[in-house]
């Protein structure tokens, strides 16, 4: 450690964005989080509906994802070509996405096209044509993407890990479905899904940019106000990831083995979440000082990339990491990873590691708020995770509050069994 810097206090990095977030509610009862900012003449909007691929009918897996590709394929008075031409004439960025738990979208527009941009979003959400021609085309694109990944080692390792971990559960299914299920999805399936999910009760919205609250609320009501009041969501049961202690080898003719490893992690609303985040950061977070980076990459040159992370589904928590090492040394890589996991589980982090992790996690929080789109994305995520509008202010104190004892317990809780579900794609030696 050098003495020529002042450690950042947890307060200074994140004060600014939070002070500027307003929660406003429209006449039709839609809550929006707004950051008003006139520096750049643009506006970024992000929204999500709870209810992504986990809401697909099992034999129709991929319905939600297919819908996300169809909303800009013509809507209202515009056929597909006219809709896309208008998007380009407005230089509008409009896209829709689908994850396991959420169906979402982002819009970015120049402020001079603000009203027209909201109108395009309104049409996409309320009056999408979803005609058979578009369905066939988007299906072909999805199948092509599935093919592209079918023998990609990273995709294969991740897919196998999910399947074993979440066997029999909706989270074990690919978000995009598979060849068979995508093929069977009909227009009626898509419309049914849309009518169940696009509603006001499960909607979260955030806006950042050059707009005041009253103008925004008017536009929010015309865009989202005519959606059904209540979504019809099926319950997604909680599931504990399975398969710990299993190693699954998937042969593929590549010179390097991709190794994915992991086990159960905390849910986002678990009281242990922050302690577990600190532990994960120390083990395999995205800094050059993380243990796995130092031991696997820097000291031994075993891999270019090695990391771990906590993934929080709404109904499952996962600890998962990955690396890629030449086949001859794949066993060695996994051994080094397991040694580090065992050591952290048994001994907990050193006090220096804990202090440094907290400094990084608190100091870097502001970096998530440096563009309009990133701020809007953060605000929707905070809403999706039910953390409250004061979370931006609370968050760094929660990191600071993790005690050495909590960190040690969290390390044991997260990593203590030493049993991992491991999937390996390649021709690994020593397995």
């Amino acid at each position, binding site marked *: 450690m050098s003495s020529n810097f002042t450690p950042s206090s947890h307060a*200074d990095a994140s004060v600014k964005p939070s002070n500027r977030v307003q929660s406003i509610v429209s006449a039709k009862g839609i809550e929006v989080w707004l950051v008003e900012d006139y520096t750049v003449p*643009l506006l970024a909007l992000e929204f999500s509906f709870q209810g992504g691929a986990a809401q697909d009918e099992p034999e129709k897996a991929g319905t939600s994802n297919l819908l996300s590709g169809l909303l800009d394929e013509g809507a209202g008075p515009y056929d597909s070509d006219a809709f896309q031409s208008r998007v380009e004439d407005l230089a509008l960025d409009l896209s829709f996405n689908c994850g396991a738990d959420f169906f979402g979208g982002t819009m970015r527009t120049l402020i001079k096209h603000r009203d027209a941009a909201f109108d395009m979003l309104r049409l996409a959400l309320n009056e999408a044509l979803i005609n058979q021609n578009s369905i066939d085309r988007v299906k072909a694109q999805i199948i092509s993407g599935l093919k592209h990944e079918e023998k990609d080692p990273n995709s294969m390792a991740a897919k196998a890990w999910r399947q074993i971990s979440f066997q029999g559960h909706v989270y074990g299914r690919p978000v995009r479905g598979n060849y068979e299920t995508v093929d069977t999805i009909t227009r009626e399936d898509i419309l049914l899904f849309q009518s169940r999910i696009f509603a006001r009760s499960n909607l979260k919205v955030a806006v950042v940019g050059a707009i005041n609250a009253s103008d925004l609320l008017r536009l929010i009501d015309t865009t989202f106000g005519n959606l059904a009041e209540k979504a019809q969501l099926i319950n997604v049961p909680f599931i504990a990831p399975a398969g710990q202690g299993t190693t699954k080898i998937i042969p593929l003719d590549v010179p390097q083995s991709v190794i994915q490893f992991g086990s159960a992690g905390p849910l986002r609303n678990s009281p242990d979440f922050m302690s577990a985040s600190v532990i994960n950061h120390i083990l395999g977070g995205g800094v050059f000082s993380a243990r796995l980076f130092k031991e696997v990459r820097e000291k031994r040159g075993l891999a270019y990339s090695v990391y771990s992370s906590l993934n929080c589904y709404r109904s499952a928590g996962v600890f998962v990491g990955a690396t890629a090492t030449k086949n001859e040394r794949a066993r060695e890589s996994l051994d080094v990873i397991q040694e580090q996991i065992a050591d952290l589980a048994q001994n907990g982090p050193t006090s220096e590691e804990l202090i440094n992790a907290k400094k990084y996690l608190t*100091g870097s929080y502001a970096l998530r708020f440096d563009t309009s789109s990133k701020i809007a994305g953060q605000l929707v995520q905070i809403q999706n995770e039910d953390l409250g509008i004061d979370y931006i202010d609370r968050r760094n104190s929660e990191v600071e509050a993790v005690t050495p004892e909590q960190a040690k317990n969290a390390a044991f809780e997260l990593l203590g069994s030493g049993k991992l579900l491991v999937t390996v794609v390649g021709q690994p030696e020593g397995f």
Partner: protein
Amino acid sequence: MSQNQPVSSTTAITDYELENGLQIVVIEDHRTPVATHMVWYKNGSADDPQGKSGIAHFLEHLMFKGTKTHPKGEFSNIVAELGGQENAFTSVDYTAYYQRIAKEHLGTMMSFEADRMINLILSEEDVNPEREVVLEERLMRTDSDPGAQLQESIAATLFTHHPYGTPIIGWEHEIRDLNREDALDYYTRFYTPENAILIVAGDVSPEDVKRLAQETYGKIPRHNLAPQRVRTLEPAPRTARRVSMTDEKVEQPVFQQAFLVPTYRIAKGNDAEALDVLCQLLGGSSVSRLYKTLVIEKEMATNVGCWYMSTALDQAQFMLYGVPREGITLEALEQASNAVISELASNLVPEAELERAKTRLMADVIYAQDNQTSLARIYGTTLATGSSIESVAQWPQMIEAVTSEDVRRVAAKYLNPQIAVTGHLLKAA
């Protein structure tokens, strides 16, 4: 679009030069109390000595191994403790290092970055495992991916004489032989203040940056002569060349076509601007010519597009690609794609279509102002490839001035399949 203000006017840009020749650009963005600090060196993989491919990239890795003053790990540990993010990247023409950090720590970053501009030390025990890391990076990015291997081969075929045909990461057999002395030789030659550009974007004032830069980078003496980038030039292509990659890991075939084109630094007239507009018209959106013809109308492809490497020191690639639908051969897709190009080379595009493409390109300039890191990259790339700061400000007007005839002219002149490299990615039978 003519009623718009020039897009550069909303962002304050200041530039100056230190006595030792270091060029400095400050991009102000006061919305969030963070700063992006980047140092760009005007050398990349195309400056690797013959037989030492990959040395620019290998040195980029080794720059994290410590200096006389700050031993290995100290810089990265401090970046992490200050809540910063750091990384580096190597391109064909430049190598850059950056940190994103709370603004009050800018001076610390400058002090460490200036230190490693001059004080790097390398030991065998650091160099050897890092060479393995680079080999693993190559295995990951290229050797496990038939598509990436095809790309590598297309570039090697398009550039028969110019170093852009050599992969940035290097050829495997040459990476294996790179050593400590190679890295230090290269470092001494290129890592000098007169070969570097400092870019600071974020919640900073130009005066503060200048003062901090003088206290840190300003202490580094001149090396007198800026290193010269003397490169062999690519001769005019005369033949159509074809490469194909057949592999059992390919489930989805792909068609690609690469053309040799001029870039902003060397283009005559407004050829580079016209190529940018052409690229947008041809494959930049769902209403582009390729998409409308091949995906929507003829239903031959699931996806198509193109990219143009417009910021490069020498002649570079314009790449077009298409993913065929089930039952469509790559030959059929190629033929249909050639017809689209030929149409653009023969007839003027309607005014509305031209305006639509320009609108998107100019809007992207405004969107870029929302992201300090993007802005820093735009200025870094521009300056490191021989264009000026003024050219960034002038770009929207230059794009606006592109006519339908300009687009037709560059399509006819450069997108000629008879002198292109065509690549096919194929599934093993």
